């Protein structure tokens, strides 16, 4: 058995087996977030892909890759979105270096 099985994405609905009202609320929210609104479906799919890569969820990465393609995006656009998310992630680490500087300065002459 693997921790991640490709087929498990299609079984997501089984999360409603226990406390179904919570899963229904989640699903309604999740679905509504992806509808066309002030942002287009395509923009939302690109945000979804960027976040999926950032949270490193293989199911979300597959789902949002397909969603990006089905909204007309190409790999150049998707790659830019993934780079931005990854760069923010890298930057978020690096900016904490200032805390190290602060800690260093506090104990140093």
């Amino acid at each position, binding site marked *: 058995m693997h921790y991640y099985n490709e087929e498990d994405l299609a079984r997501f609905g089984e999360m409603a087996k226990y406390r179904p009202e919570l899963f229904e609320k989640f699903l309604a929210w999740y679905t509504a977030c992806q509808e066309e609104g002030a942002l*287009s*479906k*395509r923009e939302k799919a690109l945000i979804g892909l960027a976040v999926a890569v950032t949270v490193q969820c293989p199911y979300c990465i597959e789902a949002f890759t*397909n969603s990006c*393609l*089905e*909204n*007309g995006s*190409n790999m*150049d656009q998707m790659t830019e979105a993934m780079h931005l998310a990854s760069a923010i992630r890298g930057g978020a680490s690096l900016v904490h270096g200032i805390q190290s500087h602060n800690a260093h300065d506090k104990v140093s002459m």
Partner: protein
Amino acid sequence: MDSGIQITRNGRPAIPAAPTPFSERAGGLRALAVDTLQVNVGKLCNQACKHCHVDASPIRTEIMSAEVVDECLRVIREFSIPTLDITGGAPELNPNFRRFVTEARWFGANVIVRHNLTVMHEDGQNDLPEFFAKNEVEIVSSLPYFQQTQTDAQRGTGVFERSISALRRLNDVGYGTSGKLKLNLVYNPVGAFLPPAQSAIEADFKRELKSRYGIVFNNLYTITNMPIARYLDWLRRSGNELSYITKLVGAFNPSTLEGLMCRSMISVDWTGRLFDCDFNQMLELGPTDGTPRTIFDFDAEKLRKRMIATADHCYGCTAGAGSSCGGTVA
């Protein structure tokens, strides 16, 4: 399969079995009109695209004869068929093609040609733009994406570049710019996924083709890949058959049923046999309820009311906003 006929391809089912049969979701479908005669004049093509439902290529020899072309012209004239839609293969490679177009125009039919763009670069075809313009032919051309990588991956190396130069030639004679000369492009997914919203991707195509290449066109049609023929072979090779048919079934949209193209057209194969659409033609899935079988016994009254032969591939026409030779239907 709904029709009860088992059609095979290389020893395997020619249509992927859907988890729910199409007839259960759609019920029986009847035609509503015969406004369009869609004629497939042969399987010969200068390309051999990976998704081609016709299995067309340069080595195919099936070509409609002058006799069958004449019969199609008779039907157009006698029954005042409003639209002739010529497809193939590359229809221009049929020696009867230009006569077919010209005479159908004399009889007052609107003529649509499914023109693959690159055929214009073949010997003796360089004047096609002028021929099309003179006859006010409506052109529908595949360009699966506005980038080279995707287009060449589906249609062959170098096709994007040659398509762009052909589009420029069409623009030069007035296509895509004036009201009369319509140039419509076709987007279809380069892979095992569904097409995007037609209006959204049309806006991208217009912006990108104009800014990168100075090309203009009228409308973009999004077409769903039909899980038959060469595209089905690819789905199987790439391990996508089950997930693709499941996707199509999951996206079934009942509001597409009213506008399905088979309900307002009849399709003719290179030998003159009649089918509900070009897909059924390739599957040799003929009408079942005693309606006329060939162009030689065409009877508009009977064909207008015929039952349509459906099977699970029909999910390719009913997914999302639907799909037809004229793009979305819902």
